[in-house]
């Protein structure tokens, strides 16, 4: 690259599986890479999964090796709790302003955990979708990278702040830390801003707030995970009842122009995968899957065929459009079986809404000058050095995201 106007650097926005992959691929061919992440940890949504299909690997399987590669690569500079404030300039030389929110913990932290023991205040555990509480000073999750605590200062009393500071042997807690602004010059930007689970409270006909027996598929992932709120037990939130029957509600908000117009791609496979979680724990539990179409593209068909043979599982073609909370804590899901032409009212102990993927960048993307499609996904403009990767680009599974990260890196290094 002889063009002097080019900075030679790549900015990767988002440190999930797509961003990690893009950053590593670009750095390993010799580019300088800035990798930023909004959360205090890298790993994104994959870090929250119990297993990912089709091989049902735990997330550590794919993430750990990537973290190691990042640690070993001096060309990658990482920023957590950091977001993009503005982008100016043009391809080959963008000026990007970043803002890093205060973590209140400096690099002295060894993650010994003494501060958390001393901490008296608690907050909802966002990593577990609020299913449990955690201390206001916390390690985001057990395998968090960077391995450093975070302080939720606004949730702490003055007393509590004093207590945690006193408990830290390494002088790592700095409650006066301020938000910082950084300006970078990069040649191209990879947008790997990922997705959020669709807000189930918008599904008014399913009334998800009416019963604690109604959970989302991502909550199910956390429940099934050993480091989750229940230590890997799948029980009904609220009364911890063991599950004798469970219903999966497919397309909860996806393929629906009132919510997400598109197919979220992963929810059918996620449900098949979660059937294995249920089956491992409850060999005789009744499983009901309500669907419009079962979409298991490519090789995933084999996975579906295997799960379809489960004698205690029923697959009902018909979308659940109403859920009634029962007095005994269970719920009744209501659908029309489009094959028999009759309505079915199935009472189950627990109900999982297979909610879809909503692009996390949303409206902010437009403000930053990105080309977005009608659903909020980023449309790549490689000639401008603006490249979308992973679920910022379209709803996708983990391995497609990794491929997309590599593809984005290949495009990004050409403009950088």
């Amino acid at each position: 690259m002889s063009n002097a106007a080019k900075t030679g650097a790549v900015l990767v926005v988002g440190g999930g599986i797509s961003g990690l992959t893009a950053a590593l691929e670009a750095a390993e061919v010799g580019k300088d890479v800035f990798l930023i992440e909004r959360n205090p940890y890298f790993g994104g949504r994959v870090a929250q999964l119990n297993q990912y299909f089709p091989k049902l690997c735990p997330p550590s399987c794919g993430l750990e090796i990537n973290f190691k590669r990042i640690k070993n690569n001096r060309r990658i500079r990482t920023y957590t709790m950091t977001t993009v404030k503005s982008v100016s300039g043009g391809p080959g030389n963008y000026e990007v302003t970043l803002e890093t929110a205060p973590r209140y913990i400096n690099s002295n932290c060894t993650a010994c955990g003494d501060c958390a023991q001393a901490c008296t205040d608690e907050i909802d555990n966002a990593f577990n979708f609020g299913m449990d509480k955690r201390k206001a000073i916390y390690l985001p999750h057990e395998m968090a990278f960077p391995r450093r605590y975070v302080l939720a200062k606004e949730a702490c009393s003055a007393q509590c702040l004093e207590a945690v500071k006193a408990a830290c042997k390494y002088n790592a807690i700095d409650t006066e830390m301020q938000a910082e602004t950084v300006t970078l010059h990069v040649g191209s930007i990879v947008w790997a801003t990922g997705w959020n689970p669709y807000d189930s409270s918008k599904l008014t006909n399913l009334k998800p707030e009416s019963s604690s027996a109604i959970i989302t598929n991502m909550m199910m992932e956390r429940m099934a995970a050993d480091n989750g709120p229940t230590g890997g037990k799948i029980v009904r939130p609220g009364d911890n009842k063991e599950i004798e029957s469970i219903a999966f509600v497919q397309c909860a908000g996806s393929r629906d122009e009132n919510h997400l117009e598109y197919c979220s791609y992963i929810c059918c496979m996620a449900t098949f995968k979660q059937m294995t979680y249920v089956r491992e724990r409850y060999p005789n539990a009744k499983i009901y899957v309500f669907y419009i179409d079962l979409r298991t593209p490519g090789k995933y068909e084999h996975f579906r065929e295997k799960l379809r043979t489960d004698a205690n599982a029923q697959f009902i073609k018909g979308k659940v459009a109403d859920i009634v909370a029962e007095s005994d804590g269970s719920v009744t899901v209501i659908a029309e079986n489009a094959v028999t032409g009759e309505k079915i009212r199935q009472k189950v102990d627990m109900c999982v809404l297979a909610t879809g993927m909503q692009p996390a960048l949303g409206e902010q993307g437009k403000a930053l000058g990105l080309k977005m499609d009608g659903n909020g996904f980023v449309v790549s403009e490689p000639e401008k050095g603006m490249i979308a990767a992973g679920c910022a680009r379209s709803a996708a599974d983990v391995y497609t995201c990794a491929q997309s990260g590599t593809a984005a890196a290949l495009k990004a290094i050409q403009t950088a």
Partner: protein
Amino acid sequence: MSVKVQPDIDFIKEMKEAGGDTLKKCFQCATCSVVCPLSSDQKPFPRQQMIFAQWGLKDRLLGDPNVLLCHQCGDCTAYCPRGARPGDVMGAIRAYAYRHYGWPSFLANLASKSQNLPILFGIPAAIICIMWLIAGGSHNIPNAKDFVDFGYSHFFGHWDFKFLTRNVLFIDLIMIPTASLSVFAVFKGVTGLWKKMTENAGIGAALYRPSPLQFVKEFLWPSVQEIVRHDRFKKCEANKDRVAGHQPLMWAFIGLFFVTGYSFISQDFIGILLPSLHGPMSMLNPVKIIANIAAIAMIYGVGVLWSNRSEMEESGQATSTFYDWFLIWMIMGVGVTGMGSELMRLIGIPSLGYVVYYLHLVSVMMLFLYMPYTKFAHLVYRTLAMTFERYRESAYVKNPLMG
């Protein structure tokens, strides 16, 4: 069970024209059947009707009581994930069915398209105009004093033959054939629909058939009671405001039916013995009071439905169709011209009063004449479907021992 599918492409095209243009978007998720407050557990709708319509299975739909049981609440359309607007499609199927069962078919076809509006108005307008000219035309327009005394009772002139006034004779000559045609068309339609519904439901020759009295008592009368109470209408969620318009309108029609019946009997029969009954009624006459209350209820009710439909169309909850609007216009026409001619009489403007009264006769004749083919036909067809629904579930059809 294998089904021989014989798609009727023209039917699909017609559906699309009649407000069901979104039909093909449906991907059969069945959300509609669940959110529908009126659909039953055993025979839910409108998911099945959507696929039948997509496939052009006209025969299935023409004999399907569910098509008529739908009150177009719009809950299905509101929750439809594809914008397939099942509520509008069901309305389009009903419009098609009324036409299909309509007799004579040229009249049914005529009444189904907005471009025929000049003819639809022109037929009654011409008939009444010709009758008026035959009756003496402008010679019959009274002076202000006579107008106060006689109102419109000399519209078609006057003679001294005391047993039947000239006016009543002419009105009878116009309206009795019109009403008879309508009644006969309804009879043909109702028997055709009943036959098709029993065929499609696979109800063969019944072992026991209800007597006419049993039929009325067990099936028809409970349906009528339900209609009067507006039970189903009140279950609608997305569009619950319609009850506030439809219920007064229904009572208005019941009131005016009574008033018309009273007038017919008093003018054509009792009037022979008591000629004093001829001429306009006193405003304090109980029948006149009922008539006035009913007229106000009619204008109010159809006004609510009018604004409600406009709002639904503006907000995208419903598609604008001639089928829906024609009935609203006709009823509004009857109400406004009726009240208008009464006002003209009370104010005392004969010439303008005569024009408004003429338009009133035209709109009333339109309502009678097109009743079997327009949306007004829901009056009989939906009642019949509700009756059939009860019959279908009864022991006459379902052997209670066989389950």
